[in-house]
């Protein structure tokens, strides 16, 4: 059998000419599909917000969740700082900021859990009304994405600890960062349409 | 060869257009036109059919001609003369279809607007659908029926809804349908233009009785006098259990000779009066019949499905109506 070498650089030359890293492109495409998935759920929420009266939405705790939103946005800043660190070869900075990202993400989830429990206490549940169904499904799927993100942050942290990333090659961190920012942006949209308007 | 080409194109074009016109004038694929909008729809359809004939003959003709004329000559393994494109031709076959589309779109819009224009003093009919029958309620006339009677020439304003799943109210001779969606009322305007009796069909899959849903109803377009007579007759019969049997939709699922009902989704009711006493041990006939109407899940006749018969007859019927129905069925 013939055996030969094809280097990675050769394989993805076309991508490099377009300044596209295939792993990042793959992530962008995945995120595009995720945007459409949330779009379907957001459309559902907005449709029912407009057509079915929901007096129970007065129980939403805008202040608490507003603070929670700030926490999630801050966690995105942590990712930016972490990426900036590793670009300059600062491995310790990356570790710190990844840790903070995961921590803030977990705090966000805690805050969401508190809001959910509080609403349940007021009789607003997944099955109590159309509002309840669409609220908890939409924010629930978002929370699931945050949870996956926190796990991913920790996995990335683990890889960073083992020295997998350098100033020259940290595509994995960038890919994680893209995902985390997406989760954050989706939340900003959700917070706006659920709590603010 | 090149000098003949424009002549060939002209001849072919004329032949195609002639074929198209002929098709548009002579090919009728539709059932009878029984509404004013049907006439408009059919004109649009025939025009489009003529156009479709032209396009179809053109493309298939070119295809067939090419297959016959341009077959590889035996032994010729070479390539053909390369032609990568022709800007003018590509523009032509983009612009002409675009223009055709604009014309069809505009014409369709005109037909639509004309079909849905409100006229004064329409006759209002509430179309109430449920699994698996139609009920037509005339609020102004104060009658309800499983048949849709309409006076000729007067616009009917249908207000269509469903009590359970989505159905679709379709009268092919009217050329229009509208979905019956639970929780919503859809309006449909039709002006009947031809005397006669026409089928009404359910056009949205609604369960096991979907195909048989239209069997129990028909559309009757009659003169205003005949329509008035029918209203009065129906009003007189409104307490009658046979009428109730049909307007409540029992005929959608059950067979009962006395009511002319031929439904097959549920058990046949001929002879129910004889069987009722011995169907459920310990239950006398009247109790069995009443229970099977208001709590149908208590005893499901073998061979038939549970969860199909509506469970709300206790709410829908007044006590006297329920008793009248039980008495009626006891006598069958």
């Amino acid at each position: 059998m013939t055996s030969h070498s094809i280097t990675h650089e050769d394989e993805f030359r076309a991508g490099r000419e377009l300044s596209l890293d295939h792993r990042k492109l793959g992530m962008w495409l995945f995120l595009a599909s995720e945007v459409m998935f949330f779009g379907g759920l957001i459309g559902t929420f907005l449709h029912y917000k407009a057509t079915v009266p929901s007096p129970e939405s007065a129980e939403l705790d805008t202040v608490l969740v507003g603070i929670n939103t700030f926490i999630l946005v801050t966690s995105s800043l942590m990712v930016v700082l972490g990426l900036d660190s590793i670009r300059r070869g600062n491995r310790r900075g990356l570790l710190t900021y990844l840790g903070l990202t995961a921590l803030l993400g977990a705090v966000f989830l805690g805050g969401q859990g508190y809001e959910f429990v509080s609403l349940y206490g007021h009789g607003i549940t997944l099955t109590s009304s159309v509002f309840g169904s669409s609220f908890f499904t939409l924010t629930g799927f978002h929370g699931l994405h945050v949870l996956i993100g926190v796990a991913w942050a920790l996995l990335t942290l683990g890889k960073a600890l083992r020295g997998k990333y350098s100033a020259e090659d940290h595509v994995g961190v960038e890919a994680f960062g893209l995902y985390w920012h997406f989760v954050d942006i989706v939340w900003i949209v959700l917070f706006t349409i659920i709590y603010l308007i | 060869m090149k000098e003949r080409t424009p002549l060939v194109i002209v001849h072919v074009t004329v032949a195609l257009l002639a074929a198209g016109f002929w098709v548009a004038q002579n090919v009728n694929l539709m059932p009878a036109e029984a509404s004013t909008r049907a006439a408009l729809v059919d004109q649009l359809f025939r025009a489009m059919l003529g156009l479709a004939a032209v396009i179809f003959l053109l493309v298939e003709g070119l295809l067939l001609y090419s297959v016959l004329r341009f077959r590889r000559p035996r032994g010729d393994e070479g390539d053909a003369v390369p032609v990568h494109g022709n800007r003018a031709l590509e523009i032509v076959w983009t612009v002409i279809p675009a223009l055709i589309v604009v014309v069809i779109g505009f014409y369709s819009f005109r037909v639509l607007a004309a079909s849905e224009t409100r006229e004064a003093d329409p006759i209002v009919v509430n179309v109430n659908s449920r699994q698996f029958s139609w009920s037509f309620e005339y609020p102004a006339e104060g009658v309800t029926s499983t048949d849709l009677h309409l006076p000729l020439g007067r616009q009917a304003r249908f207000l269509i809804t469903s009590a359970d799943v989505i159905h679709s109210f379709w009268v092919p001779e009217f050329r229009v349908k509208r979905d019956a969606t639970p929780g919503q009322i859809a309006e449909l305007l039709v002006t009947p233009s031809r005397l006669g009796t026409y089928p009404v069909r359910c056009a949205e899959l609604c369960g096991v009785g979907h195909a048989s849903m239209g069997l129990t109803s028909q559309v009757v377009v009659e003169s205003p006098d005949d329509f008035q007579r029918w209203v009065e007759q129906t009003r007189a019969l409104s307490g009658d259990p046979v009428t109730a049997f049909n307007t409540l939709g029992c005929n959608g699922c059950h067979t009962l000779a006395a009511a002319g009902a031929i439904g097959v989704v549920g058990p046949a009711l001929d002879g129910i009066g004889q069987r009722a006493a011995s169907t459920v041990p310990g239950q006398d006939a009247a109790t069995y019949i009443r229970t099977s109407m208001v709590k149908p899940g208590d005893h499901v006749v073998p061979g038939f499905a549970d969860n199909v018969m509506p469970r709300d007859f206790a709410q829908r019927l007044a006590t006297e109506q329920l008793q009248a129905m039980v008495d009626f069925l006891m006598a069958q």
Partner: protein
Amino acid sequence: MTSESIAAKPVPAWRRYFGWSTDHKVIGLQYLVTSFFFFLVGGAMAGMIRTQLLAPDSTLVSAEAYNRLTTNHGSVMLFLWILPVLAGLGNYLIPLQIGARDMAFPRLNALSFWLLVPSGLLMLASFFVGAAEAGWTAYVPLSVAGPDGQTLWAISVVLLGTSSMMGSINFVTTIFTMRTAGMTFWRMPLFTWSMLATSILVLTATPVLTAGLVLIAMDRLVGTLFFSVSAGGDPILWQNLFWFYSHPAVYIMVLPAMGAISEIFPVFSRKPVFGYKMIAFSSLAISLLGLTVWAHHMFTSGMDPRLRVPYMISTMIIAVPTGVKIFSWLATIWGGKLRLDTPMLFALGFISMFLIGGITGVFLAAIPIDLHVHDTYFVVAHLHFVLFGGSVSGAYAALYYWYPKITGRRLDERLGKVHFAANFIGTNLAYLPMFLAGLLGMPRRVVNYDPRFTELNQLASLGAFLLAASVLPFLYNVIVSWVSGPKAGDNPWQAKTLEWKTTSPPPAHNFDMPPVVTEGPYDYGEAAQGSLTPSPSAAGD
């Protein structure tokens, strides 16, 4: 960067096809065979349906069983046959056509196939617990109340959509980042272009269906009130979520088939494709326009009457890029030196039958006509002309064309022609009468019908049985030729796209030397200047 050395695995060739492989060629073939199996399953269901419909009041099949048959016939054919067979072709061909070694994400690729298998089995398993019976369109509230199989159906479709999206992430990334030297976008084969256009739709539209299915599943499993009318739920919401995907889905199902026949016409006419760029652009145009038309399935729903018109317009506009393709194909074969081998026959049949499907699509776009024929056999006829006369013919054309490359053998031409004739006659016989039945008043999804439609239904059933029979020469041909057909050689069709510049079948790494491209994929008739760097055939591969 370390270089990767690719050594062949010491596993008997046939065994690789039953296990986890990251080779796109193995995965592609796994897709092709698996989806063809489901084609036969869906076809068997069709056979039962058409047998039931031989008589207007037949009791062969109960109403309940009939609703389950029609629901699963549609679902199996769309989700488990057409979508995966075209994805399988894409999988096999894209790296070869662009001169790459494999897909960008080989393990993701394997995963997307291995998601397909259990999902398909799950859909079939639903028959054990009461199969879905609300139509492949699963309108609510009917589907929320249905038997347990409806939940399995919903889960199955979600998984299949996920598999589909994974595939498209691979296709787009591979096309953008792995084209070989000299393969500019304007030198890419049209099949690859069509897979690019298709993938845009997959990634944009599928997730919306997923969202809708999640809502149905939650209503069924957890008791949410999304489609509970008494709580304020809106059945029309489901229709919007469903059709937002399911309309683009039909373009997902036809664009690759169109791409395949765009490959076949130049080869079998020995002429360049006429209007290459316009065909590429038209694929993109159909793709993007296809995202804007979904509510033309809802003209009778009671939706705001004013909103219907923009959808009519956008739907009719799609006829324009479609026409561009058809005329470009005609201009390609015009003046050519036509070789009427089986792939070419199926490609010609595609134009002939897709034309009918496409024209009747414009009829359906015209709102006044749609209000009459929506949800009737007119639609059933239209959809089968585009999907069977179109996509399936295109798939057959592709399979006959690329079979030698995939297997290294030639298919028997006489059997191929018999298959084509039976397929062409069967398709027309089965579906032309249905147009008439719909116009005259026969609704869809009916277990029994008005006796006035009897002759039309009997003709249709006859055509369907002919179609069923037509599969036999194909199956026989494929199996026997694989074992003992004549060897194909590298390039039996003397085509110019890159997949033909390597052996049949290709080695695991596709090309011994990464090809360098200096001319377009359809430059027939040109003097051979700077043709592709020849790759030496590996002996006995």
